[in-house]
């Protein structure tokens, strides 16, 4: 079974029935070119060495596994450990992937890089590596997200990236992604599209997972040393799902480890105002792959809602769809309000301000604390830091009190 899992996706980019390549003909050649380049890079020891060197000296890996003593005490139950992806350069796990993809772009001789971003963390991580390698960088970002994640926009501009506001549709991540795809269709020959999550057409869901699986590999080693064995739970937030796949990938098939993916429940699952794609959606096609998706009776994509810009997306990675169907991961959700409460709680208790996305994973622990055993050891993927979320808190009047 484990070996079977390692062979996913199949050569056509399918995770079971999910995944594939649902894109305009114009970009098919670019996906084939990318697939070939990536397969070559994956076999190359030189590529791996360069990638590892950058991960250690530029990104700051390995990131620590930290025992969250006071948060554990608050829960009066299990021992909670944070996998500190917030300590990466640029403050989130996103850079694990952008370093990998920029090395590929350089190998393929591409001169121009585009990316979509929601919370701005992926845009920032892309702008950062583009600056480092001297490539032209264009970031598509919804107008609504530009408003709520302003600090990241300024950083991207400072790094030399052009941030293009997207004013169509919901003016969030979904529309930024559509616009980035349109740019790619137009400039496909010169341009490398750095997708920020395990979504999109094959080979992206596979490639982004592989680049993010460094989180899982380190965690596994650290568990052996610090916990003396495997944890009982691993918990991560899921928007597109890249930090979750990254940490889960090394533990799939371990019967004793329960994997929990936490989606954005927004204002509540029955309000229609959420982004809990796996919990409430059904399989469909958007942005290049067949996966769980939120759409109405006519197949039109539904506008999602989440307090967190990074989770505010109506789709999810195809591998998550398969893992949901197979039951390898349990997908749950928490509301905006629960996430916000956990955000403030962990800031106070641990002196760590988590990203609003990450706060969803933390909120699940708070919500489930009575069901967890004292002997349980739980890893939370602390996917990013929350500095960027100050405008959200301000707009909620959190600093007026």
């Amino acid at each position, binding site marked *: 079974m484990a070996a079977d899992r390692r062979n996913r996706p199949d050569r056509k980019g399918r995770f079971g029935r999910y995944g594939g390549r649902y894109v*305009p003909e114009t970009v098919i*050649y670019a996906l084939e070119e990318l697939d070939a380049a990536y397969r070559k890079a994956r076999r190359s020891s030189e590529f791996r060495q360069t990638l590892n060197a950058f991960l250690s000296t530029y990104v700051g890996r390995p990131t620590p596994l930290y025992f969250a003593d006071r948060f554990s005490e608050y829960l009066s139950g299990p021992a909670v450990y944070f996998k500190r992806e917030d300590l990466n350069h640029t403050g989130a796990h996103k850079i694990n992937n952008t370093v990998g993809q920029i090395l590929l772009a350089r190998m393929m001789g591409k001169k121009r890089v585009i990316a979509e971003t929601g919370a701005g963390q992926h845009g920032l991580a892309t702008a950062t590596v583009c600056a480092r390698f001297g490539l032209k960088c264009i970031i598509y970002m919804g107008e609504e997200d530009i408003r709520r994640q302003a600090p990241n926009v300024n950083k991207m501009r400072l790094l030399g990236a052009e941030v293009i506001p997207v004013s169509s549709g919901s003016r969030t991540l979904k529309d930024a992604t559509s616009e980035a795809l*349109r740019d790619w269709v*137009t400039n496909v020959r010169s341009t490398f599209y750095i997708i920020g999550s395990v979504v999109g057409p094959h080979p992206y869901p596979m490639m982004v997972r592989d680049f993010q699986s460094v989180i899982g590999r380190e965690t596994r080693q650290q568990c052996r040393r610090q916990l003396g064995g495997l944890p009982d739970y691993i918990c991560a937030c899921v928007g597109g799902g890249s930090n979750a796949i990254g940490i889960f990938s090394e533990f799939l098939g371990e019967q004793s480890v329960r994997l929990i993916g936490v989606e954005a429940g927004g204002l509540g699952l029955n309000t229609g105002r959420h982004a809990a794609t796996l919990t409430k959606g059904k399989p*469909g*096609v*958007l942005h*290049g792959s067949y996966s769980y998706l939120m759409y109405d009776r006519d197949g*039109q994509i539904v506008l999602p809602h989440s307090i967190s810009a990074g989770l505010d997306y109506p789709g999810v990675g195809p591998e998550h769809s398969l893992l949901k169907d197979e039951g390898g991961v349990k997908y749950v959700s928490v509301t905006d309000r629960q996430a916000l409460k956990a955000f403030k709680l962990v800031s106070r208790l641990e002196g760590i301000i988590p990203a609003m996305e990450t706060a969803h994973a933390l909120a699940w622990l708070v919500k489930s604390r009575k069901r967890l055993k004292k002997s349980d050891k739980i890893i939370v993927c602390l996917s990013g830091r929350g500095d960027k979320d100050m405008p959200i808190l301000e707009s909620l009047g959190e600093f007026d009190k």
Partner: protein
Amino acid sequence: MSRVTRVMTTRSRRKLLIPFFTAGFPDYRTTLALLKEAVKAGVDLLEIGMPFSDPMADGPSIQHSSHAALQKGTDLRQALRLVGDLRKTTLVPIILMGYYNPILSYGESRFVSDAARAGADGFIIPDLPVEESLDFRKLCDQAHLSSIFLVSPTSSEGRMRLIAEACTDFVYAVTVTGVTGGGKKFGRETSDYLMKLKRTLGKPFVAGFGVSSAEAAARLVRFADGVVIGSRLIDIVRYSDTTRQGVRSVGRFLRAVRKAVG
């Protein structure tokens, strides 16, 4: 023989003129009037767009018309009703263009049979490349409807042949890399590409994306078997003072193109 096949076999040297309209833009009645006006102007096939919330192969004009049509409550059922209404007065073949998710959501098999019953003749699904289309093509074959795929300047020769094989009747050639609309310049690169298609496809093909004038259309049909015009028609309607005037202007424009392409 299907209506599309009949048009393809009886056209002799005539070049195909194919206008595109978004169903429900600016409203249901006007779309019907526009389609009828196009038939009067002497077009060979009609392409009707079924609006989608996230049209990733489309530029600003068709994004606008899709969004406006959805605001009016246009769905797949309405698009099929439009086909049915049109069939009462014309035998011109009708190709439905739409993104894959609404069709999946409707149910592929049910959609193909409902479309056939309404009087549609074929489909273009821009986000369904040949490799992913086996099931859908089988359904089209069973219903005797055409499946038309896009070939692009970035398609390899191998893919060009693969795509031609998957297309019944004709192939849709995207003129330049990019999304729909924008009034593109067709230079040497485009003509070289179209000549390559002629050598490689072994099937008739029409050229579309960014064809915004009678001159551009005339230039393309020197190499292609026809042209598709969409965004320009949407713009004419969008920027007309009244819908009646829009319909008239579209008729005038299509007659000029008809004359230019022969």
